[in-house]
C-alpha cells in the first residue's frame, strides 16, 4: 500500500521520474554522439540537433513513402542519416581539420540552420504525428504508476545502445584505435591505421546515434523541424557537465540530468527548465573539464 512520498502522490513522483529517465535517455544518446564526434574530430557538432530531427523525418518518410514500419526505420534511418553525415564530413568538415574549434562550430551551426530552414519550408513548423508501433501501444499499471510500453522501450533501447557504444570504445580493438586517435591521430596513422577513414566512420556513427534518438523520439514528440534545436542546447549543457570526449561520462550524465530535471519538476516546477544549466554553472566553477573529463 503506497502512500504519499515526500508529500507527493507516488504517481506524480514516479511519473516524473519516468519522464526524467526518458529525457535522460535522449540526452545520453545525443551527448554520446557529440562525445564521439568531439573526441576524434575535435568538432563541436552544432548540427547534431538537426541530424536528430532528420532521423525522425527519415522515420516518417520511410513509413509514409516506402511502407517501411517503425522497426525497419529504427535500423534504416540511422544508416541513411549516418551516410548523410559521412558525406558532410568528407565534403565540408574535413577541410577544417587542425584549425580553431570555432570554425567547426560555425560551420555545423550553419548546417543546422540550413537543414532546419529547408524542412520548415517543406513541412511547416507544426509537428506531424507518428504513431508508436502496435506492439508497443498501451502500458502496464505497476500500482504506483502507469508505465506506457513505448516509454519503457525508449529507456531500454537507449541504454542498450549507450552500453554497446561504451563496449565498442572501451573493450574492442577499434575502440582502442578510436581512443588513441583522440590523443594523437598523426602517430596512430604512422602506425598504419587509416585515420582519415576512422574519422569519417566515427562521424557517421555519432550522427547515426543522433538519428537513432530521432527515431525513438518520433512517436513521443511530434515530428517537427525544430525538435532538434529545442533539445540541443540542453544536450550541450549535459556534455559540458560530463566532460567533452568522455563516453561513460556522457551516458551517466545524460541519464542523471534527465532524472534531476524530472524530479525538479515535482519539487520546484519553475526551476525545472533551468536546473541543468545551474548544475552546468556549478560544475564549470568547481571542475572546468567536467565531471568525467580529463584536465589538460
Amino acid at each position, binding site marked *: 500500500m503506497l502512500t504519499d512520498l515526500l508529500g507527493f502522490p507516488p504517481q506524480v513522483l514516479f511519473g516524473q521520474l519516468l519522464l526524467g529517465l526518458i529525457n535522460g535517455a535522449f540526452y545520453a544518446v545525443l551527448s554520446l554522439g557529440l562525445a564521439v564526434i568531439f573526441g576524434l574530430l575535435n568538432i563541436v557538432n552544432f548540427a547534431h540537433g538537426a541530424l536528430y530531427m532528420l532521423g525522425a523525418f527519415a522515420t516518417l518518410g520511410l513509413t509514409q513513402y516506402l511502407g517501411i514500419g517503425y522497426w525497419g526505420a529504427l535500423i534504416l534511418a540511422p544508416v541513411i542519416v549516418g551516410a548523410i553525415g559521412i558525406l558532410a564530413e568528407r565534403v565540408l568538415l574535413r577541410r577544417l581539420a587542425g584549425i580553431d574549434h570555432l570554425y567547426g562550430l560555425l560551420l555545423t551551426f550553419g548546417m543546422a540552420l540550413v537543414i532546419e530552414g529547408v524542412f520548415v519550408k517543406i513541412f511547416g513548423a507544426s509537428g506531424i504525428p507518428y504513431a508508436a508501433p502496435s506492439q508497443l501501444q498501451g502500458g502496464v499499471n505497476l500500482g504506483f504508476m502507469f508505465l506506457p510500453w513505448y516509454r519503457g522501450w525508449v529507456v531500454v533501447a537507449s541504454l542498450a545502445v549507450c552500453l554497446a557504444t561504451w563496449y565498442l570504445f572501451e573493450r574492442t*580493438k577499434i575502440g*582502442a*584505435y578510436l*581512443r*588513441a586517435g*583522440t*590523443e*594523437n591521430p*598523426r*602517430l*596512430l*596513422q*604512422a*602506425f*598504419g*591505421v*587509416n*585515420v*582519415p577513414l576512422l574519422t569519417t566512420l566515427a562521424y557517421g556513427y555519432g550522427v547515426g546515434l543522433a538519428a537513432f534518438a530521432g527515431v525513438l523520439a518520433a512517436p513521443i514528440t511530434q515530428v517537427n523541424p525544430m525538435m532538434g534545436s529545442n533539445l540541443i542546447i540542453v544536450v550541450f549543457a549535459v556534455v559540458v557537465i560530463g566532460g567533452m570526449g568522455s563516453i561513460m561520462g556522457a551516458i551517466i550524465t545524460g541519464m542523471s540530468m534527465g532524472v534531476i530535471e524530472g524530479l525538479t519538476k515535482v519539487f520546484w516546477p519553475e526551476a525545472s527548465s533551468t536546473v541543468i544549466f545551474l548544475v552546468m554553472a556549478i560544475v564549470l566553477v568547481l571542475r572546468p573539464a567536467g565531471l568525467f573529463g580529463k584536465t589538460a
Partner: protein
Amino acid sequence: MSAVIENHELGGQHVSERIEELRIQDLHAFYGESHALHGIDLTVYQGELVTLLGRNGSGRTTTLRAIMGLIGHRTGSIMLKGEEVIHAQPHVIAHLGVGYCPEERGIFSRLSVEENLMLPPRVAAGGMAVEELYEMFPNLAERRRSQGTRLSGGEQQMLAMARILRTGANVLLLDEITEGLAPVIVDKLGEVLIELKTRGYTVVLVEQNFRFAAPLADRHFVMDHGKIVATVNHDELESKQHIFDEYLSV
C-alpha cells in the same frame, strides 16, 4: 623494384650485394613557410644501422617525419623498398614495413601497456611475438595492466620500441631513443639494437648521444641546417673526428 649495387664497400665491410631499403633524393620539407630540409640525399641498405647526427634544429627529426609522411609539404623523392612514397599518406608508408618511434615516445595515456603494445596493426610478416617482447623487455611484462603513461621514462621507451617490433616492421625509424634515460636503460637499448641488427633489421637512428651511437652504426650522416654535410663510415670515426668536432660540439 629495389635497386641493387654490387661490390660496394660499406662501413669497413666488403659486401657483394646490398639492397636499397631507403633512397632519398633532393628532399625538401616545409613547416608552413619555414623551409626545414634543403635537399637531403641519402641511401640506406638492408640490414644497415645508420645514424643522423647533428645539433638541435639541424633537421634530423624532420627527416624522419618526412620519411614517415608526417610533414605536409615535401618535395623530392623518397623510395622505400623500391616504392616512391613522397606523396603517400603515413598509414600507407607504415604498411611498407616501416616502424616509427617518435622522440616524445607517443605512449597513449588512455590505453594500458598491453593495449599500447597491441595497438599498431601488423604491417608485415615476421613480427616478434608478445612473449618474445616481454622477454626482451621484462619490465613491460610486469606492468602490462598499468596505464601507459604511469611507466617510467625508460619503460615508456621500451614500450615504444616493443610496439613497433610486434608489427613486423623491418625498417625502423628511431628518434632520440636514449634521451633523458638512465645509463643502465641506455645500455639495455644498445643491446636491443645490436640484437635487431643481428636479425637483419634496417635502422635509421636519430641520436645526440654520440658515444651510444658510434659503436652501433655502420654509417653516420652528419646534418646541419637541413642538409647532410658529411657521411662517416664506421671505420672512419677516428680519421674524420674533426667533422664531429665541427658539427656536433656546442
